[in-house]
């Protein structure tokens, strides 16, 4: 029941946007006021077109519409979920998030084309197929979806309001839940629970233990104490995008943590790290030292109506390696010792990828 609550919060996650029309496309005086829109975290920016276009259409110059967005001059990749873009580009969350919308001059040399809703839908479907392949070793269940199921699945994502419909259709894809003692079944009543357990067992036999992960890594060379001091991403070349499945290795007697996951995905930095359970005492010490900021972080989280997971700035480092300065998933900063199975089962996006934004502090030597 608690787990379903978390999934629901993620599904209903939203970001207040203040959308300004680019000045080069303003043909009336005074310029139109910005549009205020609450955008679903798990949605995609081009899907906001029906809400934005009527607002600005009377002031647009003649020409063919091709909608795109930028944040402080950085063109936004439309195929990345809105919530991930926000976590990545606004380490110090800005509310409302100020974006600029364009209807002309699509930057085709930087952004892949977007032909409206169809492009977004197929980008989503192709990601879902990829996730199915990672988990099951094939994407037959996605390929063999009926037309009505495909429409229902996409509508539930596009409208971002129908979690029940999404769960009903996606359960047919048999994309298994990460299995360990901390796994939670989505079914609530007993008969469904029994049936669900059966399906899970079948899926468990087939799956390879690979988890679909999309990692967005950017680095800083100077230290900082607060996210407010974090320099912002000025170019996409500064962000390393890693589309890398994660092989889960579960040792008997202990669970796989979020920290284990990051260590596995970024082996260059954590090759010499000792086991996480040996690090826990130091973590706890760090938590004690950061009590004030932790309280502030929790308060801010509660005020924003987001899930309260007691997130705080995680610091985790060795003498010569990189340091995790910030890690965000679905707008929260989970503790690194949280069971990774919980993170995956509750914080993944509808296309079954877990999107993780990570900021690393890199020693200056490596920058030369």
């Amino acid at each position, binding site marked *: 029941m608690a787990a379903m609550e978390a999934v629901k919060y993620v599904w209903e996650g939203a970001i207040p946007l203040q959308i300004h029309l680019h000045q080069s496309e303003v043909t009336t005086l005074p310029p139109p006021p910005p549009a205020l829109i609450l955008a679903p975290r798990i949605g995609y920016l081009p899907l906001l077109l029906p809400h934005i276009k009527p607002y600005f259409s009377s002031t647009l110059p003649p020409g063919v519409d091709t909608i795109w967005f930028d944040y402080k001059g950085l063109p936004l*990749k439309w195929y990345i979920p809105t919530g991930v873009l926000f976590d990545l580009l606004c380490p110090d969350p800005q509310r409302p998030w100020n974006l600029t919308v364009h209807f002309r001059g699509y930057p*085709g*040399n*930087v*952004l*892949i*084309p977007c032909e409206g809703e*169809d492009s977004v839908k*197929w980008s989503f*479907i*192709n990601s879902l*197929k*990829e996730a199915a*392949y*990672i988990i099951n*070793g*094939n*994407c037959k269940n996605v390929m063999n979806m009926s037309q009505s199921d495909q429409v229902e699945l996409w509508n539930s994502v596009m409208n971002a309001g129908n979690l029940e419909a999404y769960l009903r259709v996606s359960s047919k894809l048999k994309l298994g839940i990460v299995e360990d003692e901390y796994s939670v079944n989505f079914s609530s009543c007993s008969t469904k629970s029994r049936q669900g357990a059966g399906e899970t067992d079948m899926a468990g036999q087939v799956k390879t233990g690979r988890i*679909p992960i999309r990692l967005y*890594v950017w*680095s800083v060379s100077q230290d900082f104490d607060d996210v407010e001091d974090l320099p912002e991403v000025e170019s*996409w*070349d500064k962000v*390393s*995008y*890693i*589309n*890398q*499945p994660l092989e889960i290795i579960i040792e008997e007697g202990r669970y796989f943590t979020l920290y284990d996951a990051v260590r596995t995905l*970024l082996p*260059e*930095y954590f090759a010499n790290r000792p086991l996480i359970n040996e690090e826990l005492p130091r973590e706890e010490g760090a938590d004690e030292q950061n009590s004030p900021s932790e309280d502030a972080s929790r308060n801010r989280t509660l005020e924003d109506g987001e899930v309260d997971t007691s997130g705080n700035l995680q610091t985790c480092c060795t003498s010569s390696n990189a340091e995790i300065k910030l890690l965000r998933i679905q707008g929260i900063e989970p503790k690194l010792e949280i069971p990774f199975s919980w993170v995956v089962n509750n914080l993944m996006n509808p296309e079954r990828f877990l999107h993780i934004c990570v900021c690393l502090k*890199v020693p200056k030597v*490596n*920058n030369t």
Partner: protein
Amino acid sequence: MDTSFFNGTLSPREFSLASSAFADKWRRFNPTFPSWTWVPCKKLPWAPSDEVEGYLKLENVCLPGSSKVDSEGGSCVGKEETSCSDNEDLIDNATLVQSSHHEVHYYDFHIVYNASYRVPVLYFRAYCSDGQPLLLDEIEKDLPACSAKLLLESKWTFISQEEHPYLNRPWYKVHPCGTSEWMKLLALGDAVQAKNGVSIEQYLVSWLSVVGQVVGLKIPLEMLNDS
């Protein structure tokens, strides 16, 4: 070796080995054609990584189909060409100027390892002699007839523009989701003919013999038989 070929997939290390073998073989059997070269790359540019990561690239390719279509007004009859020599370029240019005023189209190809599907993926881009990139409908005319038809029917899941994993720019991508299945079938066929089964070194030769047809990039027959 056998385990990998049984399910039609490659590990990153096997991809690196197969790439090296493929580039050597291509150079040996295609001396007049541009060479495939390995481009070392890191996903994390500032990472102290020992592992060699990268992709194969083939640049400035003038596809035979493209030339023939342009110079013969859409007809593909005549002898088959497997390479574009300098002389042929001169002839084609002269013919182009006189008859149809079409520009010669150049293609860059990249073979990139895909960690999700654990198979190689073909990325490409196309441009005119002045470097201007081609639009999709212009590329469509260069493609073999069956590919152009498939592209019309299901472009979203066949060839579409995606972000190049290393260059962070839009490139055309041949979708890889069915690769492991037909590579498995191909490997089984090869294994029946060969006594010792199929080696990793031959993976990319077999792979390109299928994927290359999508874009009209041909492999010499001797290259396929050499194993």
